[in-house]
């Protein structure tokens, strides 16, 4: 039973939280929504820092809260690691003291992460004897992540760990989080209101709005759902998971393969590497015939799934490319000119794509 089941109903001051979802018990699940949607409240309830009056929480068969049975496991007895939004290091302890705090309180038999490994992983070696006041924002957050990992959690809860950081520090932390996702098999719940971060990190996404779950599902599927706000907004796009298969050394390019064809990206990725590519809807154009050679490298055959018109003369076309779904944001005039309809075979040209990891 590899799943995270969350059912919470509670009144927090004037805010009503009423959520119910089941997410996979592995990978990163993003709680995504505007501020005030209740993302942090869900996380705090999951941690046991807040007690929902009606609640059922379980991870991979282990129940942490079941109010029907009067069961509530206090936070310090839950196998969770929590990374708070802002710096939350203990000011009276050194970096080492902070790391050891949870480590010492984790029974030796339950430890799955070696102290030195966590230190090495987040490159904290040179910082160990410093005090938290002598660290940069990014360094502090790295310590906080390592500190949470050192309790060998079954579930990692990340409450907008990047939001208090500037762009530079954010860029410093993101690779660690990606690595966490790739190499460490600890499932995580990641709270964010930044779509960029979610697209980069998440596998599963729970859309929250005003204390309720609007929708939840695998990231790739939800990004291309035109009935949801993400696919209607300017940041609409889709993701494709692909494998690096071939280098074009002369041009400094790498070819990626997925079941819809091949994509060419700049740079030399290690062959065999699994990568995630984000393709913005506005960077995709649609042609009826195979396009004449052009400067656009990535052209793939596709099938039109459907066309959704928006206000202001634009439309979003959903396209099936292999098992992947791409979005194309084009004008209604183009839709009419090409007479696009469901089931039609077309060619997509991808002007640019972002390599996420």
């Amino acid at each position, binding site marked *: 039973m590899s799943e995270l089941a969350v059912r919470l109903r509670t009144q927090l001051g004037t805010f009503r939280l009423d959520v119910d979802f089941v997410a996979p018990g592995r990978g990163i699940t993003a709680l995504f929504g505007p501020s005030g949607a209740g993302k942090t409240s869900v996380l705090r309830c999951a*941690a046991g820092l807040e007690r929902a009056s009606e609640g059922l929480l379980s991870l991979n068969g282990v129940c942490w809260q079941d109010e029907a049975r009067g069961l509530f496991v*206090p936070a310090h007895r839950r196998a969770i690691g929590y990374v708070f939004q802002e710096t939350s290091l203990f000011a009276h302890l050194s970096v080492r003291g902070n790391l050891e705090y949870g480590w010492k*309180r984790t029974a030796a038999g339950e430890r799955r992460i070696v102290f030195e490994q966590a230190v090495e992983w987040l490159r904290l070696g040179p910082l160990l004897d410093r005090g938290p*006041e002598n660290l940069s924002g990014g360094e502090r957050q790295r310590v906080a992540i390592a500190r949470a990992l050192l309790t060998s959690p079954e579930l990692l*809860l990340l409450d907008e760990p990047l939001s208090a950081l500037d762009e530079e520090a954010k860029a410093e932390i993101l690779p660690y989080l990606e690595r966490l996702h790739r190499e460490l098999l600890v499932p995580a719940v990641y709270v964010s209101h930044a779509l960029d971060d979610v697209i980069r990190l998440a596998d599963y996404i729970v859309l929250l709005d005003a204390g309720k779950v609007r929708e939840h599902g695998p990231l790739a599927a939800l990004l291309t759902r035109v009935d949801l706000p993400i696919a209607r907004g300017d940041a609409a796009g889709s993701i494709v998971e692909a494998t690096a298969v071939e280098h074009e050394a002369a041009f400094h390019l790498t070819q990626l393969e997925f079941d819809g064809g091949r994509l060419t990206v700049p740079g030399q990725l290690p062959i065999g590497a699994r990568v995630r590519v984000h393709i913005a809807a506005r960077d995709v154009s649609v042609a009826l015939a195979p396009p004449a050679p052009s400067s656009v490298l990535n052209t793939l055959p596709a099938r039109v799934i459907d066309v959704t018109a928006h206000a202001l003369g634009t439309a979003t076309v959903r396209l099936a490319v292999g098992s992947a779904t791409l979005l194309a944001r084009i004008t209604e005039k183009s839709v009419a000119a090409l007479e696009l309809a469901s089931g039609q075979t077309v060619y997509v040209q991808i002007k640019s794509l972002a390599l996420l990891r």
Partner: protein
Amino acid sequence: MSDADWLAVWLTLKLAAVTTVVLLVIGTPIAWWLARTRSRLKQPIAALVAMPLVLPPTVLGFYLLLFLGPNGPAGALATSFGFGTLAFTFTGLVIGSVVYSLPFVVQPVHNAFEAIGRRPLEVAETLRASSWDRFFTVALPLARPGLLTATVLGFAHTVGEFGVVLMIGGAIPGQTKVLSVAVYEHVEALEYLHAHALSAGMIVFAFTVLLALYAINRRMEPLR
């Protein structure tokens, strides 16, 4: 200075030390409770703790005398256990001093606990620390500046008390005759030279203590 004066100095320091220890043991939990509770009793209890700040020491001393005396509840209890009355004893003096100096210990510690906020304790909770563990390994160390201030203030305030001592302690040498009372008696007896020696010493002590306090607070600031 005469032997009697030295005895008074020694007694004063002993009283202040014992009182401070008792105050920290009693005052820290009260401060913790005040900082964390959402109970309606918070305001009344806080007001009660602060009362010695505004009451004349004689008022406090008067009721303490009744409370500790042979017919008072505490005095009667002590007598029934064979300790005799508490009024005019060192123990009685400690009890009086604890009540009198309570706000000087509770308030700085209370402020320090409030300044910590909930977050560090929540962090500790997610790091597997039980509530006692959190209190001793996070709350107390982070409240260290407040605890230091409380220790110094509690000690110094007890050294400087007079009214309460006079009401419940009298002036039994070696038992209840503390420095402030000794000064009072010297002045009454027109022994100005003795009064000077004790008073000047007291002034130097007070200045040193406060100076140390401010220096400590300054040094501690980055911790907050």
